[in-house]
């Protein structure tokens, strides 16, 4: 896609978000402005339905090779390697080595934003006048993206999914997310962030059954500059598709309950 078109689409909105600063040289991809999505009764683009990512970002958001049980994959990060500060790169590598013990996926916790989006489970978008709600199959989580005029509540707050405030920028749903814990990762490869994480998600319909999902990550405690990931989201076409359930904690407890030395029951 032509760079000039991309910049013309995202430029002004990035300014409007503010506080992101310059995005030096990040190769942005964005939606063609040609598709006009249907509207909800409130007059906004209608993103409702059951969606899912179809990529390997849940394993690793960067390029990675295959290994037992893991498909090889192209990364979803725009531009070069993740701009870790030196200490943070070392910690990322340590995370990867100790993933079994450290990744909260193994404890069935909420996995943060944007990771919940590209877990291999569907999610349903529900729109109302005052908010957009995402119903995740994973853990049965509910995430409210408020557009009721309230700013982010005053912190300090540490939530696993952060606090989400949304607005429309043309056909794009723009979500500003802050107030995160430092406990969650971006993937199973140990890519991580701090509690200073600031996420801006952009959901842009590119056709009746596709959205472009772009995420800007800003975390001055961990990275040297903001960076962006981008991927398509697909509307599930299965005629019987619906959000079922993945009750992770129940399956985990049932598996571990009668084991003599399960780490799950040791004080942390």
């Amino acid at each position, binding site marked *: 896609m032509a760079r000039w078109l991309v910049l013309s689409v995202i430029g002004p909105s990035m300014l409007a978000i503010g506080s992101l600063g310059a995005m030096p040289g990040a190769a942005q991809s964005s939606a063609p402005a040609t598709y006009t999505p249907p509207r909800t*009764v409130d007059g906004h683009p209608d993103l*409702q339905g059951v969606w899912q990512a179809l990529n390997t970002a849940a394993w690793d958001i960067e390029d990675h090779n295959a290994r037992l049980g893991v498909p090889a994959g192209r990364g979803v990060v725009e531009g070069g390697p993740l701009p870790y500060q030196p200490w943070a790169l070392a910690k990322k590598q340590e995370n990867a080595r100790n993933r079994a013990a450290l990744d*909260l996926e193994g*404890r*069935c*916790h*909420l996995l943060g934003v944007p990771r919940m989006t590209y877990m291999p489970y569907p999610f*349903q978008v*529900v729109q*109302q006048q005052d908010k957009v*709600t995402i*119903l995740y199959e994973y*853990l*049965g989580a*509910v995430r*409210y993206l*408020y557009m*009721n*005029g*309230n700013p982010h*509540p005053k912190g300090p*707050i*540490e*939530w*696993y*999914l952060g*606090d989400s405030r949304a607005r429309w920028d043309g056909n794009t749903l723009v979500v500003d997310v802050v107030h995160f814990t430092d*406990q969650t990762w971006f993937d199973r490869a140990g890519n991580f962030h701090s509690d200073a994480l600031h996420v801006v998600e952009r959901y842009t319909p590119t056709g009746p059954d596709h959205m472009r999902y772009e995420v800007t990550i800003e975390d001055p405690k961990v990275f040297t500059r903001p960076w962006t990931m981008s991927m398509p989201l697909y509307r599930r076409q299965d005629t*019987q598709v*619906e*959000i*079922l*359930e993945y*009750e*992770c*904690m*129940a399956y985990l*407890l*049932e598996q571990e*309950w*009668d084991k003599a030395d399960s780490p*799950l*029951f*040791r*004080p*942390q």
Partner: protein
Amino acid sequence: MSHRSFSVALKGATLVLSVLALARSPVAAQARFAPATPKLPMARTWTAYKATLPPYRPPRTPDGVPDLRGVWGGPGGAGGDDIEEHEYVDSTTPPQESFISDPPDGKIPYTPWALATRNEIRAGLARGWPGESGGRLYADPASYCVTTIGPRGGGGEITQQPGRVILMNARIHRVIRTDGSPPLGGGAQLWRGSSRGRWEGDSLVVSVTSLNGRHWFDSVGNFYSDSTRMVERWRLVDANTIDYEITIEDPTIYTRPWTMNYPLRRAGTGGTDAATGKYAWRTTVTADRDPYAREMWETTCNEGIGHTVEELHGLGFKWFKGVTPPR
């Protein structure tokens, strides 16, 4: 200490945030009751009161079905601590009428072995209640933050789209398709079952099948099985009250179908009315001037139960795998 208390005994920062989240939710934090509390009204008072209501035609959504949209409280009273009628037990378990409108005695019509099983579970709850065995058997599955069946989901928001009714609160979502699509089949089972709705006059009628039989109706071990079927009826009886009725059928554990019936009140339109003996509903958020009062904030349930799980496991409670009828 009750297990419900365990389940909110969260860690560190999470505790503060969870309390905040509860305060923001239309479902008020758990009340504490004095021994002299009058018996809280439930099915008996509600069915008598309901009989006096004038006919009401609910408003319709743009696609012409009854409009149930809004934020609604849960069953009210002391919640689902024990759905059968009981006297005062402790400060979180005040005297309360049965949730059950049929049979008329308000008791679950268990078969004899199933009643014995329920009594065994109840005697092993180790809540410091009269009649306990002194041992520990199962903790309430709700202690583990597992999603639950309709009646225990608590209050929340209902929104509607053509072909579906969507329920959601801070922790749980439930999409009820009303488009005639077939329910989950093939022996697959879910914690919250598979829900399919249809409109009958002014009522939303929801059939719940494919349950895994692993949850309870309340915190004292009243159970169902993986062959149980439930039918819920939701009907507006005035602008701010839903008449909620659920009929439970399972010949393997009950001698006959039985029904719970109670009102759900629209958030901001009422409070618990134990003093007058009228029907009960939840006290709602009073912080009208707080612009965040109607937002539903993260409860991080799984993340906060580490201590609960360690404690219940360490105390020797077993993992409840459902009840299997004798052959």
